[in-house]
């Protein structure tokens, strides 16, 4: 049993994978708590798919993906926030258009990059589905730096995010710049998606962002509880997913999403069995 649990970590690639998985499992549901209570799950999925564009550009030019993914991701996030407010068509429609268009452009640039840089281009399957077993030292370092940036952002803006999420008009009346707060959240979202890409992949990074916090939402009574329980479920899903990825040779994104979904199922059953009683 000890061998089963500790054995894999004699390899340095597994140690790196564990660090990145734990960071992803911890950080994504924290930002996810704000996302699900603001009804922004679809935007986060769209943003994850759109980040394929800057990643593909890096692959084409032969850069490390972070060089373009971090600024590109933030730029796309802000663009989506702007378009969802100003296009005059419904929020989800405009996000859907950007989502599909960006994903298509990204996949085409990626396929060109495979021809231009054979052998050096990013593997499409790894990018889409995540391959946490393949993370490099650079991935670990960048993930740590981005984690610190996101944690600082949340520390500074938590109160503003809470107020604007709960009562947007009241927040504006007391002088909170709700648009700025929305853009800060979108920028933080872009950063956590970049961190999540190597572990969860583009297709399933939303799973780690939304499912643990959704399960926590069913279990916790207060928002702080959603954040803390969500982070715990996220770390558990990511680490168990890492083992599944190692032993069953599954891509890590689907493995983590599967564990998170199973926990969500259990949380739903728990909620049905023990509905919270109203205090009326």
């Amino acid at each position: 049993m000890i061998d089963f649990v500790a054995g894999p970590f004699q390899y340095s690639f597994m140690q790196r994978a564990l660090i990145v998985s734990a960071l992803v499992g911890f950080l994504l549901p924290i930002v996810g708590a704000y996302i699900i209570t603001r009804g922004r799950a679809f935007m986060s999925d769209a943003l994850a798919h759109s980040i394929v564009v800057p990643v593909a550009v890096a692959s084409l030019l032969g850069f490390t993906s972070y060089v373009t993914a971090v600024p590109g991701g933030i730029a796309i996030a802000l663009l989506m926030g702007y378009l969802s407010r100003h296009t005059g068509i419904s929020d989800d429609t405009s996000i859907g258009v950007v989502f599909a268009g960006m994903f298509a452009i990204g996949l085409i640039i990626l396929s060109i990059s495979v021809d231009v840089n054979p052998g050096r281009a990013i593997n499409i399957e790894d990018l889409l589905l995540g391959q946490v077993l393949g993370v490099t030292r650079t991935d670990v370092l960048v993930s740590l730096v981005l984690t610190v940036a996101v944690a600082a952002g949340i520390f500074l803006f938590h109160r503003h995010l809470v107020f604007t999420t709960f009562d947007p008009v009241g927040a504006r009346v007391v002088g909170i710049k709700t648009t700025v707060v929305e853009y800060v959240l979108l920028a933080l979202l872009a950063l956590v998606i970049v961190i999540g890409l190597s572990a969860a992949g583009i297709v399933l990074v939303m799973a780690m962002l939304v499912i643990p916090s959704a399960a926590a939402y069913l279990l916790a009574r207060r928002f702080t509880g959603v954040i803390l329980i969500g982070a715990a479920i996220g770390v558990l899903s990511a680490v168990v997913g890492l083992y599944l990825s190692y032993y069953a040779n599954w891509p890590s994104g689907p493995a983590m999403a599967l564990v998170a979904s199973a926990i969500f199922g259990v949380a739903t059953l728990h909620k049905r069995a023990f509905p919270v009683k109203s205090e009326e």
Partner: protein
Amino acid sequence: MNNQPGITVTDLTVDRDGFRALVNVNFHIGPGNLVGVLGPNGAGKSTLFGAIAGVLPITRGTVELHGAKGRSGALAYVPQRDSINLRFPATVHDVVMMGRYCHLGLFRHFGRKDREIVRTCLERVGLWERRDALIEENSGGQRQRVFIARALAQDASIILLDEAFSGVDVGAQEGIIEVLQSLRDEGRVVLLATHDLTNLAERFDQIICINRHICAYGPPAEAFNPEVLEELYGSHGMVLAHSHMGGETHIETHMNND
């Protein structure tokens, strides 16, 4: 006198979504006033509050808030039921604590003093016992009192309550009015917008009847007359009773479903 709260609105015109929502609105409210803002749905009550609160652009005219200059949180807004995100799991205590946000710096978090203020405000509206209840677990009347406590925690001297009586039964409306009267007695300016005043009109010091412009402004007995009610509610509104009984004016308006 300059530190006394008050509102002066001069020639206010506001366009909203390509539509002239308010035209040439003028009024002055001095300190220690409880004012009912009455008008049908779409009359511009929320627009007026938005303009006073500084969250809607003014097309023409001015809004002056007295006693609020340079004071953070001097004006508080109690939102309409629909503009609150009930998906957000906040307790009564959490919501009142939001009133302290504007008194904190960027790097500071809540301290003992903030918690004491929140407790005092919740006790004042009679909801300290319900501090751990989620906001969605409260009745409409309790919810309004939670937001009034938030305005108190904010230390606001001007309080705007938007559609404060929707989803609130008549008994609970009475309780809200009592709390608001005690705030008025401290010199605060309280504006409450509603499309239906039922029989509470005489509990206000002043009534502003609004339907894109000011139809009447004054004490309840003066502001209401059949012409004003006709202007507010048109032929759809029926004045059920407008009679003087024992020196008090009893006014009930009945709205049909639109």
